[in-house]
C-alpha cells in the first residue's frame, strides 16, 4: 500500500512516500541515496544488507519498509558520530576486510552484538556473525577486530 512511512534514520527524521511493502534495502539505497548498505543475495542469506532497527541487526533486503515505521534505523553512514566508531577503527587496525563489500554489514552485525553482549567471548562473536558471509576470507581478522572493539568499549566504560 502506498503511504508515507516515517522513521528515525541515523538520528534524523526520515519520511518516504512509497509502497510500504517494499524492502528497506532498496528504499535506503535508491530512494534515500544511502549506498553504504549493500545488496548481496536478496533473501536474507548473506548479511551484506545488515542494518540496525531498534537494537536488532536485521536484513534490510528482507525487511519491509512498514516494519520500521516509527522506529530507529541505523546504517553504516550513521554509526560514527564524531570520527570512526570503535568497531570501524578496529576493522581498520586489523585490516578486517579485503574487497570491503561485506564490511558495512559485518560492522553493523558486530554493533548489534555489542549492544546486547558488551563482552562477548570469541565463540559468541563467531556464533553471532555466522550468517554474515565474507568471500575474501577475512574471518579471523573480523573476529579479532570485534574483540578489540569490545575491549575498547570496556576500557572506555
Amino acid at each position, binding site marked *: 500500500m502506498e503511504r508515507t512511512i516515517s522513521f528515525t534514520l541515523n538520528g534524523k527524521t526520515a519520511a518516504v512516500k512509497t509502497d510500504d511493502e517494499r524492502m528497506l534495502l532498496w528504499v535506503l539505497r*535508491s530512494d534515500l541515496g544511502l*549506498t553504504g548498505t549493500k545488496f548481496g543475495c536478496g533473501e536474507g542469506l548473506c548479511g551484506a544488507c545488515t542494518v540496525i532497527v531498534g537494537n536488532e541487526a536485521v536484513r534490510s533486503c528482507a525487511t519491509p519498509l512498514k516494519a520500521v515505521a516509527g522506529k530507529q534505523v541505523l546504517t553504516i553512514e550513521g554509526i560514527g558520530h564524531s570520527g570512526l566508531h570503535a568497531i570501524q577503527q578496529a576493522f*581498520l587496525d586489523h585490516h578486517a576486510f579485503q*574487497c570491503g563489500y561485506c564490511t558495512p554489514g559485518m560492522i553493523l552485525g558486530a554493533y548489534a552484538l555489542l549492544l546486547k553482549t558488551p563482552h562477548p567471548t570469541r565463540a559468541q562473536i563467531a556464533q553471532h556473525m*555466522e550468517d554474515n558471509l*565474507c568471500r575474501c*576470507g577475512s*574471518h*579471523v581478522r573480523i573476529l579479532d577486530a570485534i574483540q578489540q572493539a569490545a575491549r575498547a568499549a570496556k576500557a572506555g566504560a
Partner: protein
Amino acid sequence: MVADGMKRREFFGVAGSGLFVFFSANLAAQEPARLPGRQAGPTDLNAYLKIGADGRVTCLAGKVELGQGVMTELAAALAEELDVALDTVDVVLGDTDLCPYDMGTFGSMCTPLLWPAVRRAGAEARAVLVQMASERLQVPAGQLQVHAGTVSESGKPSNAVTYGQLVAGKRIERHLENVPVKATGLKVIGTSPRRKDGPDKVTGGAQYAGDIQLPGMLHAAILRPPAHGAKLKSADTSAAEKLSGVRVVKDGGMIAVLHERPDIAVAALGKIKAEFENPPAGPDDKTIFDHIQKTAPQPRVVGQSGDLAEGQRLAGSVIEGTYLNSYVAHAPIETHTATAQIEDGKVTVWASTQAPFMVKSAVASALGLPADKVRIISRYVGGGFGGKTEADQGVEAARLAKLTGKPVQVVYSRQEEFFYDRFRPAAVMKIRAGVAGGKIVLWDNQVFGAGDREANPFYDIPHKRVTSAGGWMGGNPAGMNPFAVGAWRAPSVNSNTFARESHIDVLAAKAGLDPLEFRLNNLTNARMRRVLETAARQFGWKAGHAPTGRGAGMACGMYSNACNATMTEVAVNRATGAVEVKRVVMALDEGLVVNPDGMRQQAEGCVMMGLGYSLTEEVRFRNGEVLDSNFDSYRIPRFSWLPKIEIVMVDNPEMPALGGGEPPIVAMGAALANAIFDAVGVRSLQLPMTPERVKAALAKA
C-alpha cells in the same frame, strides 16, 4: 606503440603539469598467446606516475583493486623510492580514460610484474628530482638528501627545495631508464602499512559500480532463460507495461524492464509471461564426469620423460586413481553490476570488472562506437576471484542506456550471478603410478577438463607422461561444458594439485612410508623442500604410516613459481561424515615479501576459500538448469568453519616478489583429503568432500 588508439600525448592532455615518468611492466610479453582474442598490450607504456606542484605523487595503472591490496602495494613502492610519506601518494586504478592499457587483473601479476616497474619508476623520478635540485640549490647531487619529499643539502637543512617546488609550472616527461632501486635501508617495503582503501571501506564510502547514482537513472531487470540453451518462444509483456513508471525495452533478443527503483523493476519483470523451449537433455552433476571424458578434445602432452613401460617394469605393480572435481562458483558477495551513462556521444560505464579494457572493447563493439568514445571505470570491486574477467552486464547497461536515453544500472540478482558465472570447470584426473625402493618411478596422468597448469609434477620422476584435454581457458568442443567455464582462483591448479597430492599419499600409504619422508625422498626442488620442512616443523609433524588416527594431512603446491606446503588437522564424525578442520599450517615461498601483512591476508583468504571448494562447494545442475541459485544451497565458508591458521613465510629475498593471491589456495583440497584419510582410513576421490561422500567412503570400507 600504444594500443587501443590511445597515444601517449593524449595522456598529457589529461595529466596537466608536473613530472611524468612513463614505464612498462611489459605485461603483454609475460602473458603470451594463451589468452585468445584478447587485445595485445602496448610494449612501451603500462602505467605512469606524476609528481604535481602540490607535491603529491600519483600513480596511474590499469589494474583493479579487487581487495588484494594492489593500491597499497604500489603506493608503498613509490613512498619507498621517492622518500615521501605514504599518505602523499595517490593510486588511480581501473579507469580507461586516465590509466594506460592493461589486459586485466588476474594471474597474480600485480606483484611480480607491475610492482617492480612502479618501483623502478619511483627510483627514476627521484633521480630526476635530485638532479633538478642539484642545479637549483647549486649543490652536487651526492651532497643532497631527501626526506618526506624535500631535497636538502646534507648538514645544511635550510638549503632545501620540495618536489612540488621543483616541478611547479614545468612539464617534464621521462621514459623509464635503468635507474637502480634502493638496495639497502628500506623503510616501507617489507613493512605492513595501513591499507589505503581502509577508510573508504569501513565507512560505507567506498563506491562500487552499483553505488553510482545519476539523475534520471533507471534500473534494469532483464528476462533470463530458465536453463542454458533454452530458447524464448513467446513473451507477453503487457501486464508489466501497464505498471506506472515501468518501461519495457526489447532489442536484439533482450527483453528488459526498467524503473527508477530497482526493486520495482524486478517486481515488474515478474509480470512478464514468458514461454521457453527447453534445451535438449544434457548432463547433470553426476553424469558430467563421463560426459567430459567423452567430449574432451584431443589430449596434448604437457610433461614427459623416460619411458612408461620401463617405469611400469621397475615398479612391478601400478597404483591407479581417478580423481574428480566439481564445478565451483566464484560467488563474490557483490554480484556483476554496471552503471552506464551516455553524454555527448560518449559512454561511461562503471562496471564491477577485473578487466576494464576488455569491457571497453566489448562496449565499443556492441554500440558500434570508436574506442575513444567509451570509458570504463572500475574503482572498487566487491570480489573477483577470476569471475569478473568478463563483464556482460557492462554491455547490457550500455545498450539499455542507448535505447532509453537515460543512465541505466544493471545489478545481477544472486540467481543471475550463479546462472551466468563462468564456473571453475568440472574435471577428471586419472593417474597410474608406481614406486620402487621408496622412489616414484612411474607417473602416467591424464587430465580432462581442468587445464594443464601445474599438471606436470615437480617431483623427480624418471618415467612420466602427463596429458591434458580441454580446460578453463576455452578451446573446448561445444557442449563439453553445459555452461561457460573460466578462471577460478589459480585455474587448473586446484584440480591438478588435489589429484597429484592425494595420489602421492596413496603411494606413500601403499609403500608403508610416512607422507613427509616419501615426499622428501622424491623431491630435489630446494625451495619446495624448504617450505615442506618448514611447515612440518611448525605443525609438529609426527612421522607415521597413515592412517594414524590423528587426522593430519599434508600437500605441496606450486603456482606462478610460488611454493607452498599445507598441513591440516581434522576431526571426522564417523556417523555423519562431517569434517571439522581444526588447524591449517602453511609455509610459503613467495620470493621477496613486499608486504608481510598483505601476503598473510591473501593466505588466510585462500585457506577459507580452500575450505569451501574442498568441503561443500559444488554447482548442481540438470539439463542446462543451474539448481543452486543462492547461499542456502550453495554453502560457502562461515565463521564457525574458521580453523586455527598459521602462516609461515619463508622469505626468499634473492628471488623477485611473486604473486600472492592464488598460490596459497592450491594445496587445500589434497591436504584435507589426506588428513581425512589419516583420521578414518578412507578418502573421497571427489571434491568437494561432503559429509555424504565421506560417509559413503566409510560405508564402503
